[in-house]
């Protein structure tokens, strides 16, 4: 077998023992350009490290300031950052807020997202598929602040008229908005997962006389389960990190919710709401940066897991 020469194999010599050469400036220019390309390639790593570094740098003084307790930060529900006498920085209620909103959003988004992914990948014809995918892409493009506005106006009105609760901006509202926002990512990654199942699986099942439904239930779902898990995880990642929409739609009181019509506040919304008011360099300001580190860590773990799951699928 002959191997194709890549540009890294040295050029053949011309008759007379000379190598073909280009002007020195051209070679040097190309070297410089390739160095630049390499640098840009590494830039993503630099940016991630820089994000961690700069956010952490602003947060660090409070950690060693003596008035701050990391246990209280993580597990206390008392968030009184601007209290005169009793300043408390406990984010537990915010964490619970983030988790409840995300869980409820996923409870809505996952069945619909996966159902839509199954329909797109297995039931519809090429033209319909194309149309649906374009619509999903447009759905994914709607800015979060517009979603927040929709939650504040349309969905809040809808909730108050249908259920009769006095306030329409609450846990349910935020979850509906987040569900609508994370459905597109679940659909597109889920559809990829179904597409990744080899056609021979389908052919074998159809040859046994299965209907499409049996094929989906018995063959495709088990075969694509890792990809679907990754789709759900990426949806969770999107929902946890979402800021503006939950800031506008969840009603914003720091409490552990007791029902779906309670108002909650999430970690992201809390930073967005209070960062403007916290004086730069104050404890409050630094604690908000620490919240940022917490969020960074949560989404890092979620995305990393999703990536490992997807990678596992590919390797197989």
């Amino acid at each position: 077998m002959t191997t194709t020469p890549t540009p890294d194999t040295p050029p053949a010599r011309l008759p007379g023992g000379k190598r073909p050469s280009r002007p020195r400036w051209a070679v040097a220019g190309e070297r410089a350009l390739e160095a630049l390309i390499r640098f840009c390639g590494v830039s993503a790593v630099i940016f991630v490290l820089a994000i961690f570094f700069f956010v952490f740098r602003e947060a660090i003084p409070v950690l060693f300031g003596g008035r701050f307790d990391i246990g209280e930060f993580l597990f206390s529900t008392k968030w009184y950052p601007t209290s005169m006498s009793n300043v408390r920085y406990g984010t537990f209620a915010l964490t619970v807020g983030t988790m409840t909103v995300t869980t409820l959003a996923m409870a809505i988004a996952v069945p619909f997202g996966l159902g839509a992914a199954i329909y797109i990948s297995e039931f519809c014809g090429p033209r319909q598929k194309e149309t649906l995918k374009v619509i999903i892409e447009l759905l994914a493009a709607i800015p979060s602040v517009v979603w927040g506005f929709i939650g504040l106006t349309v969905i809040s009105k809808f909730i108050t008229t249908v259920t009769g609760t006095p306030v329409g901006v609450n846990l349910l509202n935020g979850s509906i908005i987040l569900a609508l926002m994370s459905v597109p990512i679940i659909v597109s990654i889920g559809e990829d997962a179904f597409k990744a199942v080899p056609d021979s699986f389908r052919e074998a099942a159809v040859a046994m006389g299965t209907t499409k439904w049996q094929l989906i239930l018995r063959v495709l779902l088990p075969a694509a389960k890792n990809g679907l898990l990754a789709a759900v995880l990426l949806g969770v990642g999107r929902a946890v990190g979402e800021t503006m929409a939950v800031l506008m739609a969840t009603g914003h009181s720091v409490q552990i919710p007791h029902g779906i019509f309670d108002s909650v506040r999430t970690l992201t919304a809390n930073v967005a709401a209070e960062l403007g008011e916290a004086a730069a360099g104050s404890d409050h300001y630094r604690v908000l940066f620490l919240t940022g580190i917490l969020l960074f860590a949560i989404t890092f773990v979620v995305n990393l897991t999703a990536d490992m799951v997807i990678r596992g699928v590919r390797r197989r």
Partner: protein
Amino acid sequence: MEPTAAVRFSRNSFVRNKERLQEIARWVFFSMAILMIVPLVTIIGYLVCHAAPSLNWEFLVEVPKRGMREGGIWPALVGTIYLVFISLAIAAPIGVLAAIYLNEYAKDNWLNRLINLAVINLAGVPSIVHALFGLGAFVYAARLGYSVISASLTLAIMTLPVIIASTREALSSVPMPFREACWNVGATRWQTIKAVVLPNSISGILTGVILQVSRAAGETAPIMFTGAVFYKAVKRGDFFPYQLTDQCMALSMHLYTVTTQVPDVKESISYATAVVLLGVVLMVNASAIGLRIWMRNRKKW
């Protein structure tokens, strides 16, 4: 008695049952797909209906009046254009070069796995964390202050993964034999990229750049603390109202402001702002999709 072929292949109750189940499943999944679209269309229709009284040319070019309760959105519109194009000017070269590195130069070793991981993670970092980073790094550490440039830099880093991902996809859709043919006539790696790979993937790269524009136009949280302000006095129809070191208004921020921070805003104004923002973003995205379809139709290989 042996069952005849006709009996064996007739539609017995079992077959009917499974076919009925299949029809039910089909309709259930169809309605799930449709249920995603129906609320979207209804909501957009609702927004446009409520925005109609304010939606006109005057609204676009007029400045906000009476504490943003009346008037238009011109300063916010221009601010968004500023932020988008400056962030694009920063993110596009870095993103495209990074994608070239990842697709054309990188071998499968630990460094490049690390870079991939970083790109994925950068795409997943919450927008509010980008805001904190922008505040810590550009506003304070780099002493750029609350300004257009700080906000644009923050947006650029935030939208970098969009460009990297779609450029990579465009580059990797260029078939390998194209490169091999070029290498075989003695071209170096960069010459091959310049002469063969980039011309064959330019429309895909453009799609990525357009998607970056739509993403940057819609983001609110990252610019909220790095350079966007509630209000800035600007002349009507002025195209160059901001310096790089000025603070600016932005459409997304303006929508947040008029809906949550200012009391008694005329209802149609906030709806119209939402519709304009939505319209801009969806139009930019639709053009990216159109470009992609056009490109696919004239692909030669």
